[in-house]
């Protein structure tokens, strides 16, 4: 059962990812990413990360993607020209990427870490991945990270306002 779910999720996630890269219209790419994220959330569930999966759907597919869609719509769905201004990159890039994949896979498969060969369920305790558990951790052990993340959001918001907002800046820029 798990295997089937995994492969379905994996194929969906991979397909979504490939579509993101392959779609020539950014608008479609955004939609493909949404698909990818949804399938990925499914895999997260398999990993007993319910809260993360939910957050992924809500925050990402729900909120972030909306911004993407807006921006994509705002700047227009420009289709990329087929020709590449640097064909070398088009060849060398993927070759290197494949090499990277091979290397990581070798490392994973060649690793002597025995736990890798398990599904890890023997160590799982009750309440694993639940919002309570995560929330507790966030407010106890990782309070600083949590605060930092919130400040990061604040800063990012300010940055976004500076860059995209300001009427005055627009006027000056024009």
């Amino acid at each position, binding site marked *: 059962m798990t295997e089937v779910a995994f492969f379905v999720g994996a194929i969906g996630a991979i397909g979504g990812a490939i579509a993101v890269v392959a779609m020539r219209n950014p608008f479609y790419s955004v939609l493909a990413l949404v698909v990818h994220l949804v399938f990925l959330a499914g895999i997260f569930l398999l990993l007993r990360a319910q809260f993360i999966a939910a957050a992924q759907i809500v925050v990402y597919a729900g909120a972030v993607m909306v911004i993407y869609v807006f921006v994509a719509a705002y700047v227009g769905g420009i289709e990329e020209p087929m020709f590449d201004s640097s064909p070398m990159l088009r060849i060398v890039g993927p070759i290197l990427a494949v090499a990277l994949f091979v290397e990581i896979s070798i490392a994973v498969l060649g690793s002597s870490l025995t736990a890798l060969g398990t599904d890890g369920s023997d160590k799982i305790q009750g309440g694993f991945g639940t919002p309570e558990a995560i929330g507790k951790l966030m407010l106890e052990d990782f309070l*600083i990270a949590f605060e930092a993340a919130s400040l990061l959001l604040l800063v990012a918001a*300010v940055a976004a306002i500076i860059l995209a907002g300001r009427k005055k800046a627009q006027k000056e820029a024009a």
Partner: protein
Amino acid sequence: MTFDSPSIDYAALSPIIALTAGLVVLVLVAVFDSIKRFGSPIALLTLAVTAGCLIWQWDTNTDLVAGSLHFDGITVTLSLLCVVSAAVAVLLSIGDPAEKQTGRSDYLALLMGSVLGMVMLTQANNIITFFVALELLSIPLYALCATNLRKRDSLESGLKYLIIGSVGSATLLYGLALIYGTSGAMEFPQIAAGYLGDGTPDSINKLVGDPLTLVGIGMVTVGLAFKVSIAPFHQWTPDVYQGAPTPITAFMAVATKAAVFAIFIRFFLVALIGMVDGWDVMLAALAAFSMVVGNVGALAQTSLKRMLGYSGIAQAGYMLCGVIVATQDGISALVFYLAAYVAMNLAAFAVLVAHERRTGFSDDISSLRGLGRSKPLLAWPLTIAMLALAGLPPTAGFIGKLYLIEALVDADWTWLGVMIAIGTMISLVYYLRVVAAVWMSPEAEASPTDEIDTSGLPPAVAGGSAGDFTDGQAHRRWYLVLPAVIGAAATIFFGVVPQPLVEFAQQAGNALSAYIS
């Protein structure tokens, strides 16, 4: 549901608190147009308080907030360097087009955010704080690089930095995941313990030599090397340095290095100290490669900022040596070098900012011609900064190299010491080219005089005129000249009386006495 709120040592946390408070105030101030002009004083005050808190906690060496942070000598010293460079950046930003366009407080809030990230990064003690602090450091910087909205270069550099930076972050994240997975821990000391296994030689070797561990180390290295612009992950550096508003470049060039080297030290020398044999040769190769690439790349540059970008690559290579040797001396040497680097680089950038403002934003080396004759207050700091970067006595740059080489030789890394020497020789050529332009060439033909006629000047910047921001009196502005002069003076002072700075640096070195000799 109950929470066991972690015990928090507010005294040691005070720098972060102060910065956060300042950041929030600045954001609030940004809302009200009428008090925006107080942005700079507020930012300076914040930084001053932060610095005060750091000095107040000089001797503290403790875990904070359930081990998320670790406050020690490394934190204090390197945070101070970040704070100082931020303060200088604030001063240099006064009147900068980027600052004016973005509304002062917003801009400064971003700056504060970045400083906060840095200060946090210097004490980050687990993977999560490490990652989030690094992002808190980087994301505002991406934005800041793009803040000169009317300048195409600025936007371009912001986007390039962001994209490449995010690739770096993703790689780092992946590496961190592997480290987490193989060691089974988040906190650095626990990671080290995790790799030690149950203490039997067999278990140590198994994990230390495990391909997954090593791949993880490799990817973390890439992420960090990217941030401090170690070749071959350096390529963003010259472009971003050149495109970003100069005060930001100044800040980025020194503060980022200080903060990221802090985590470099903490991660490699605490978490990964067990496999030092695994990564030292790799880091040494990167350092050497960096020295070569940075130095040869800088040779034919005509833009001073670009040249400083390349030189930063080489300097990062030198600094990395301090990590490689994995000794307390090495850390001290690195911190010393960073401190010297802060002084000399900020002096150079301060001069550069003043010069740019005066001449309509030209950072071409040839535009410096005749500066020695006409503007000694700019020429001397620049000269001293260049000589110091080149590692000539009697500057802190020389002592810094000396310290590094001493640490290297002491740990049997003499060949890296020789590499530093060779790199320095190459670097002489371009540093001294600046000196030669300042002192040894006749005044540039189109050299702007004090009463500059901006209308006659061609737009010096691609895609727009900066005329509004040109300031013919820039070389008399205290907020530009003061950092330059203080930086230069510090460079000389610590070249002649290095002992205080050595002790400062040793404060950092001693912090890790539990892990390394």
